[in-house]
């Protein structure tokens, strides 16, 4: 697989949200606005790239029996690094995303890529795979965030262009499920390759 297709496969072919259907919890919970979705996507991408690199390096020496716990500790370490960095430099973002930053540890995308890709490929390829899947995840989260923000508060990235308050339900839980459901329908209809 060429280097470029490694990076772009996350957008449509291996899109983590609409095709692989992984990491649903942060996808639904943090996309209340376009900005929140984008930030969550970038945070996950940070962990994904670093854990892919580390796991592709340690995979050859880890005994098969304990590989899952080892991977989880590697991922948890990078999540802790991310938590400390965010608390120091962007505390407001950290408090908005809240619980879902530590929960990147149990995001199936990260462990999934470690198991499916990083443990049998080189460092560079694994890093690019992390970047590609991370970009795909960020893109999906941002799109969901944009739709929910337009419907829920009539703005995009905080720029308000519709009068009124919008439909509150779309910022709350039901809207998350509904927007994701309908976007998945559109994705299946127009973008998915059989």
């Amino acid at each position: 697989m060429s280097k470029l297709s490694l990076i772009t496969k996350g957008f449509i072919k291996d899109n983590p949200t609409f095709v692989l259907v992984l990491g649903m919890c942060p996808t639904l919970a943090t996309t209340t606005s376009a900005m929140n979705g984008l930030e969550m996507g970038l945070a996950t991408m940070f962990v994904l790239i670093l854990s892919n690199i580390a796991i592709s390096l340690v995979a050859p020496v880890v005994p098969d029996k304990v590989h899952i716990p080892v991977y989880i500790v590697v991922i948890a370490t990078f999540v802790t690094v991310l938590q400390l960095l965010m608390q120091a430099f962007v505390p407001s973002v950290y408090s908005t995303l809240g619980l879902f930053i530590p929960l990147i540890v149990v995001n199936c995308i990260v462990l999934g890529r470690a198991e499916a890709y990083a443990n049998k490929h080189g460092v560079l390829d694994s890093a690019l795979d992390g970047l590609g899947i991370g970009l795909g995840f960020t893109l999906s989260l941002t799109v969901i965030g944009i739709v929910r923000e337009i419907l829920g508060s009539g703005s995009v990235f905080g720029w308000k262009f519709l009068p009124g308050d919008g439909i509150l339900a779309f910022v709350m839980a039901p809207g998350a499920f509904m927007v994701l459901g309908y976007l998945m329908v559109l994705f299946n209809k127009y973008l998915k390759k059989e």
Partner: protein
Amino acid sequence: MAEYLLIIVSAIFVNNILLSQFLGICPFLGVSNKLSTATGMSGAVCFVITLATVVTFLVNKYLLLPFGLEFLQTIAFILVIAALVQTVEIILKKISPSLYQALGIFLPLITTNCAVLGVAITVVTKEFTFGGQAHLLGLGEATVYALATSLGYGLAMILFAGVRERLALNDVPKAFKGLPIALITVSIMAMAFLGFSGIV
């Protein structure tokens, strides 16, 4: 006593873990095809969440806090949960083979169920407000919170599995088949649960 009642009602109905906190969605969508598997999964989750919350609460209070190691919370908790799930699996296999048969296949999946880690982190970091004053939960309240939350998980899961069994018999447009229609159904359920907000 009133505090416990508040915790229970709020955790099961008002802040339902699946329908308003979005924790543990993957298994919720994954195993809710059949009522029987949904019930089995809910039972296993209920058991593990309650046990894991008690253990991580104690680890946090008597190991991490006294030594100033709060920054290790995420790593420590996930390791405790993984070890606990393994132990429970081994013990169940020996003591109650029938229960192991019922829960067995779901147990390994639970380690990466974010509901478990989510509840464990919530009870040690979030301040709850009762009668105007906010405070962190004690061990008793944390246990009740964990139990009630996991009952809420079971409630939503079993209700949804019932709906989904009916849904499977219907003629759904091709693009809606599978997950999309399931998500839209959950959305309507979440709307119904919004009706509970304001009770507490």
